């Protein structure tokens, strides 16, 4: 059932949540950069800027401890993680391109192994989306089957209204429950018109056609021309809402330490470097090829989904201007 909320009531609602001790994560400016971070007051919330990093870190943090070890004599004590480290969380102001990536990630984190770190956070998080009314020239959600108002992945979707306030549309039981719990802050929709949705200048790709080309062109001169300039950093993967590779490393001393899981990126030379010294992806174009193949072929082969939501972050931040939209367009034209 749709509800409506004024801007002022929305801020009051946020403060009530925080007052109740609820963990609320949303776009917030930290040392000059907007990131999805825990809010300490409603005034922290930044609503007019796409955070530099995606919302995936609410489920798959940049870095987390998996276990702790302590060695005394011949005895090794291993302390496991505890469920209380996954607090109930309300994720607020999530853009459709970020929210849509979450169900895409569910597939890989609950495939041959149920990743409790991801899934526990998933269970305990309510995702409140915010439809976009502005796009920039790097946005291309409309090209990969989504839209600036797509509710995919959200429990509750906020759509900005003409004259202020939001229309709140639930898309899951969690969303319904949230509206029921906080019904005092909401009112019945008064028929106000939603603000026009953003319009990214990107027409839908024929993803099947792109995949068909990728199926046949693991070896192709195009990879060199695309990625010879790639410098091999992990920026594109780290700002991506859908990239999910991680590394696990033990850090500490012989006596005590922690096993940590943190983001990894296929652009790094070390990513496929074997213990033998051999590296099957010895040059940067082979690494960049993996980025495209994983997103538009392998993930589709395995899970029937595309590992890209068109947020455009990689296009904006690539230090050498590699533009994934441009690559997809060329690939489609070749297919």
């Amino acid at each position: 059932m749709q509800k409506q909320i004024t801007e002022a009531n929305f801020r009051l609602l946020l403060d009530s949540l925080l007052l109740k001790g609820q963990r609320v994560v949303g776009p917030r400016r930290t040392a000059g950069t907007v990131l999805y971070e825990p809010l300490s007051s409603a005034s922290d919330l930044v609503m007019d800027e796409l955070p530099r990093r995606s919302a995936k870190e609410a489920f798959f943090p940049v870095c987390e401890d998996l276990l702790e070890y302590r060695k005394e004599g011949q005895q090794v004590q291993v302390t496991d993680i505890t469920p209380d480290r996954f607090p109930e969380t309300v994720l607020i102001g999530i853009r459709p391109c970020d929210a849509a990536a979450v169900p895409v990630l569910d597939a890989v984190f609950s495939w041959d192994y149920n990743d409790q770190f991801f899934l526990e956070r998933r269970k305990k998080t309510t995702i409140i989306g915010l439809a976009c009314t502005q796009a920039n020239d790097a946005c291309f959600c409309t090209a990969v089957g989504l839209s600036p108002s797509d509710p995919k992945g959200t429990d509750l979707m906020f759509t900005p209204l003409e004259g202020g306030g939001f229309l709140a549309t639930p898309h899951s039981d969690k969303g319904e429950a949230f509206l029921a719990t906080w019904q005092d802050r909401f009112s019945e929709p008064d028929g106000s018109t939603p603000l026009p949705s953003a319009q990214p200048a990107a027409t839908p790709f024929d993803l099947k056609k792109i995949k068909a080309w990728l199926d046949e062109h693991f070896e192709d001169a195009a990879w060199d021309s695309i990625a010879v300039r790639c410098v091999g950093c992990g920026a594109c993967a780290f700002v991506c809402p859908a990239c999910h590779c991680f590394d696990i490393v033990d850090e500490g001393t012989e006596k005590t330490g922690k096993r940590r899981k943190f983001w990894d990126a296929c652009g790094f030379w070390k990513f496929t470097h074997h213990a033998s010294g051999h590296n099957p992806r010895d040059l940067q174009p082979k690494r960049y090829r993996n980025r495209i193949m994983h997103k538009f072929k392998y993930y589709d082969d395995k899970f029937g989904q595309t590992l890209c939501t068109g947020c455009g972050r990689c296009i904006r931040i690539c230090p050498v201007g590699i533009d994934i939209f441009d690559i997809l367009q060329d690939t489609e034209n070749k297919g």
Partner: protein
Amino acid sequence: MTQTIDISRYSALTEAIRTEARRILSDGTVSAVIGYTSGRRTGAVQPIVITAADDADKLLFTAACVNNLAVYLTKAKKDVPKRGRIAVVLKGCDLKALVGLIGESQLKREDLYLIGIPCSGVLGSVLKPDQELTTATIASKCCECTDRLPQGCDFVPAVDLPSPVPLEQRYAAEIARLEAMTPSERWEYWKEQFSKCIKCYACRQVCPFCFCEQCLCDRNRPQMVEQSPRPSGNTAWHIMRAMHLAGRCAGCGECERACPMDIPLNLLNRKMAKELKELFGTEAGFEVQDKGPLTSFKEDDDQSFIR
């Protein structure tokens, strides 16, 4: 007040680069030209390696030509073919880095054909590449640039630059602000900045001086620096980076420009450069130096730190 910066000469530069690239590729002077070309988005620019004279018209120079292309010449970038003599398009700041690489025996001058750009400045950020170059959008490094006209190149287009508009010395001001802080305030400032680091290593990968075939941070047998993006490992990395670049960094500012988390990395490098200048009277320039200030000893070196 924000003022537009005159870059009307950049179209003449583009023409000159194209003509020269066509000539040196046709007559076999070079096997490849590393330059800038346009991207899909309005105003976007990306590095390109061309090997055919017919591709010379792809080259250009605009205020979005931020990259230091010298990075592609180092041994760390194996992907760029290095057969024969290679031409590279360089701004003054980029050239100073290349000169440093020659000084460190990483490059040989005779293998290179240097196309120098008389530069009025470039954008500080290309997140939005179609921005106009103004006193507000210009890169901080350009505000303090004293080397707009590259020296010692094989070709520099004959273009008269308009006299530079006065610009706020942002690094100097920020360094002064940080120097005035107490050590604990300064520590808080950097702790907050480094907390944003996600160890994507964009700063390392775009740096011409980060040519180590295996960075200490990538070592895991044994691990030298914590690899995880946490406060301790992040801080270790950034201090190591700053120290390793002291006396070498030429100030191209690519680390800071490439950082997706907006960490003011060049501030560390500028502070180091300031110290080096005060202590040893050295700074990055267009003359090849056999030894850097931290790899040579002179009897009159400042030794006040030995107590």
